[in-house]
């Protein structure tokens, strides 16, 4: 039996005006276990806390009930007071007789009666409280960033800046991501490469940052503060340490017909290649699907020309295992495939292109060296039609239900740049809505219309008909003039919806991080914890969490870094002690709890048990990782044998409260 002290607070007149506090203190005296009961004007004041501390010592209390304001207000205060008086802080329970009693009832009699019942319920619960100790787990002071686009780069740089080690895993041969393919950035029109490549170089030169390029995450184990990650370094058949990036191999390689993904397949590269001049690391990679030497052992040209002997045709995939305290997901996006939108003739005409392809056509490092030329015949287009929302806001099943957010702005950028560089070109933009919420965004769009004379037409394109003379007949609606238009265009640019990178889903499974129906990672709280996954220790950066432009991505990347730094700065993590606990003797190994756990905190293992007849038996039983469990209690209800219980909110405690209320 506990020795319980009850402390009823007046809260000035906040409680005392509608609850007869003395009557409450008096009534609770008779409850089982209560050895002391009193009231006081302000229990949270220094004097009030001292009253609790002194009473604990004087009466040898083992449990404390404070009838006061909401536990959300002062539970911590009273727990600390109790702890300083030498009892376990989790032996304190609060009866909320202010927010949930005195403030909402006018009638003293019924308010007092209710306050007594709430007090009794708290006493009944405290009877069954057990001292809890918050566990601690060490923090590995190293972070992993998955994805080396602008989001991952910014996060890594910020974490390194704070003095922590950070690794970037990038599946492509170089870091940089989609931003390397972009020509200019809205709304300021500065060149993407000019602002991105210095950051890439910073990553390479920062001794706190290690880049695993051409690598993928293969396995993740562990929990916040202590993840063990297996990284697969794909064979690039070139020794990264020896290769100087001179590029001679990429000039001599006889296989010249490999579609160049960096230029969206609009030109070719060799079988051994460096994606682009500013690649980081600047190391060649052999594409095993095309290399003659790797396919049939006949060639070896690159190896002959390499002056440092970096080529290694026998290289194998290797697995590296590393430990991390925090993981940042920055897996980014891709434009959707346009197979289901062939009314726009994307697969029927080379001159129907996506916006990302348009970026390459206007980029100085692109296939046309920055001159805007039609992919089909290399001529200047004189009429260009931009189509917005191709596959965005689409509930028909062909596209994505969400707004891709970036298309309105980049289309305005494309239209404006085209008109600036080629004033003789007619530019049409078909839009459903123009969405420009961002600093200087609407001004930018209006400039495209007002200063550059881009024709913005409210309506949609319904059909694109390529013709033998190379023109594209664009059939569209103009909703404001209520006309069907037929425009003879030379180039049609489709603003394809963006979707999370395909690797995200398998990664989410490895990380036990949750995703929405569109495969975007969900955040711990949509407003207040936007850069954290609900899974502790996993953080989100960039488009993997939802469509966003570069400024937003960079701010989120830095925010994620700040959260990581906050975590890594700790030597140890204090865990919430109110976590689930499995009674191994009752567990029947059914896995029901494991299935409902949103955090993957429950694992099963075979354990040896002494049976009553002195034999031993091996049974499969659940155990809860206290560092991962967040204490929701879903498992306690799912457990068919009643083996799972939640500390601090145990079955018996809650039922004791129910009994007290229903008495």
């Amino acid at each position, binding site marked *: 039996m506990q020795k319980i002290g009850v402390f009823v607070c007046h809260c000035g007149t906040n409680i005392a005006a509608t609850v*007869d506090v003395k*009557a409450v203190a008096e009534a609770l005296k008779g409850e089982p276990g209560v050895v002391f009961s009193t009231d006081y004007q302000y229990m949270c004041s220094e004097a009030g806390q001292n009253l609790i501390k002194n009473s604990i010592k004087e009466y040898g209390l083992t449990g404390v009930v404070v009838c006061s304001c*909401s*536990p*959300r207000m002062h539970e911590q205060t009273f727990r600390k007071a109790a702890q300083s008086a030498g009892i376990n802080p989790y032996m304190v329970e609060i009866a*909320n007789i*202010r*927010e*949930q*009693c005195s*403030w*909402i*009832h*006018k*009638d*003293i*009699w*019924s*308010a*007092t*009666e*209710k306050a007594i*019942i*709430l007090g009794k*319920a708290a006493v009944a619960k405290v009877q069954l409280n057990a001292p809890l100790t918050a566990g601690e787990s060490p923090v590995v002071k190293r972070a992993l960033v998955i994805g080396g686009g602008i989001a991952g780069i910014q996060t890594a740089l910020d974490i390194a800046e704070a003095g922590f080690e950070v690794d970037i895993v990038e599946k492509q041969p170089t870091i940089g991501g989609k931003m390397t393919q972009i020509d200019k950035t809205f709304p300021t029109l500065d060149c993407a490469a000019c602002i991105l490549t210095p950051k890439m170089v910073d990553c390479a030169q920062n001794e706190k940052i290690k880049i695993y390029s051409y690598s993928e995450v293969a396995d993740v184990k562990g929990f916040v503060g202590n993840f063990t990650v297996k990284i697969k370094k794909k064979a690039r058949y070139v020794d990264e340490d020896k290769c100087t990036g001179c590029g001679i191999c990429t000039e001599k390689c006889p296989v010249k017909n490999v579609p160049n993904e960096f230029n969206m397949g609009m030109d070719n590269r060799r079988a051994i290649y460096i994606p682009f001049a500013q690649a980081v690391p600047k190391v060649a990679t052999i594409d095993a699907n095309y290399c003659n030497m790797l396919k049939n052992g006949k060639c070896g040209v690159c190896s002959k020309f390499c002056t440092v002997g970096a080529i290694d045709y026998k290289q194998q995939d290797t697995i590296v295992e590393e430990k991390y305290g925090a993981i940042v997901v920055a897996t980014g996006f891709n434009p959707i495939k346009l197979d289901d939108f062939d009314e726009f003739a994307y697969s029927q005409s080379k001159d129907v292109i996506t916006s990302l392809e348009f970026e390459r056509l206007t980029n100085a490092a692109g296939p046309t060296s920055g001159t805007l030329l039609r992919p089909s015949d290399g001529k200047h287009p004189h009429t260009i039609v931009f189509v917005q929302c191709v596959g965005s806001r689409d509930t028909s099943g062909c596209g994505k239900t969400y707004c891709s957010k970036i298309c309105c702005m980049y289309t305005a950028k494309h239209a404006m740049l085209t008109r600036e560089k080629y004033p003789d070109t007619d530019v049409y933009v078909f839009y459903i809505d123009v969405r420009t919420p961002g600093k200087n965004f609407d001004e930018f769009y209006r400039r495209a219309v007002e200063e550059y004379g881009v024709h913005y037409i409210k309506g949609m394109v319904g059909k694109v008909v390529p013709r033998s003379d190379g023109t594209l007949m664009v059939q569209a609606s103009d909703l404001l003039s209520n006309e069907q238009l037929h425009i003879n265009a030379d180039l049609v640019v489709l603003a394809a919806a963006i979707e999370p990178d395909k690797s995200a889903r398998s990664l989410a499974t490895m990380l036990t991080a*949750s995703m929405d129906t569109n495969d975007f990672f*969900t955040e711990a*709280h*949509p407003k207040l914890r936007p850069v954290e996954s*609900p899974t502790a220790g996993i953080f989100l950066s960039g488009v993997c969490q939802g469509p966003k432009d570069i400024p937003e991505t960079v701010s989120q990347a830095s925010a994620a870094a700040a959260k990581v730094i906050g975590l890594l700065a700790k030597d140890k993590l204090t865990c919430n002690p*109110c976590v689930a606990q499995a009674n191994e003797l009752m567990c029947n190994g059914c896995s029901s709890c494991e299935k*409902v756990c*949103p955090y993957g905190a429950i694992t099963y293992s075979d354990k040896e048990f002494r049976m009553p007849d002195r034999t031993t038996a091996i049974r499969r039983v659940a155990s809860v990782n206290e560092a991962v469990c*967040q*204490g*929701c*209690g*879903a498992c*306690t*209800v*799912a457990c068919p044998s009643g083996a799972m219980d*939640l500390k601090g*909110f145990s*079955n018996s405690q*809650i*039922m004791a*409260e*129910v*009994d007290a*209320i*229903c*008495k």
Partner: protein
Amino acid sequence: MQVKETNEFKPKIVAFCCNWCSYAGADLAGTNRLQYPADVKIIRVPCSCRVNPMFILRAFQRGADGVILCGCHPGDCHYTTGNYYTRRRMTLLFSMLDYLGIEKERTRVEWVSAAEGAKFAATMNDFVATVTKLGENKRLEDLRCKAK
């Protein structure tokens, strides 16, 4: 302390509120001084999914006239998916209770966010009125528990 007429029926109502949304919503109702009957007594749980059907059966066994569960709105659960479990479990439990003679109106699941103090008060007012109309719950009540 003044003595009150106790002829009129006062239902016993147990409300389970999740710590993150609904308990905070109840606090907000208090902060805004929004009235609802004193018959409602709240038990704080970490998540609505912590509520074992056993607790609800226990409440009716001990003479509760109504039980209400409040959690975060679907999609807003602090633990991501807890309230979905609640929704499914309670749908099943309530239809079973209905079969046992505990009217569907005596049990309820409501989503109340931390910002919905007014909704919390309105929900409780409505629930108390509904249960009051139904009168005392005779089913499942175990008189042996009452005698103590």
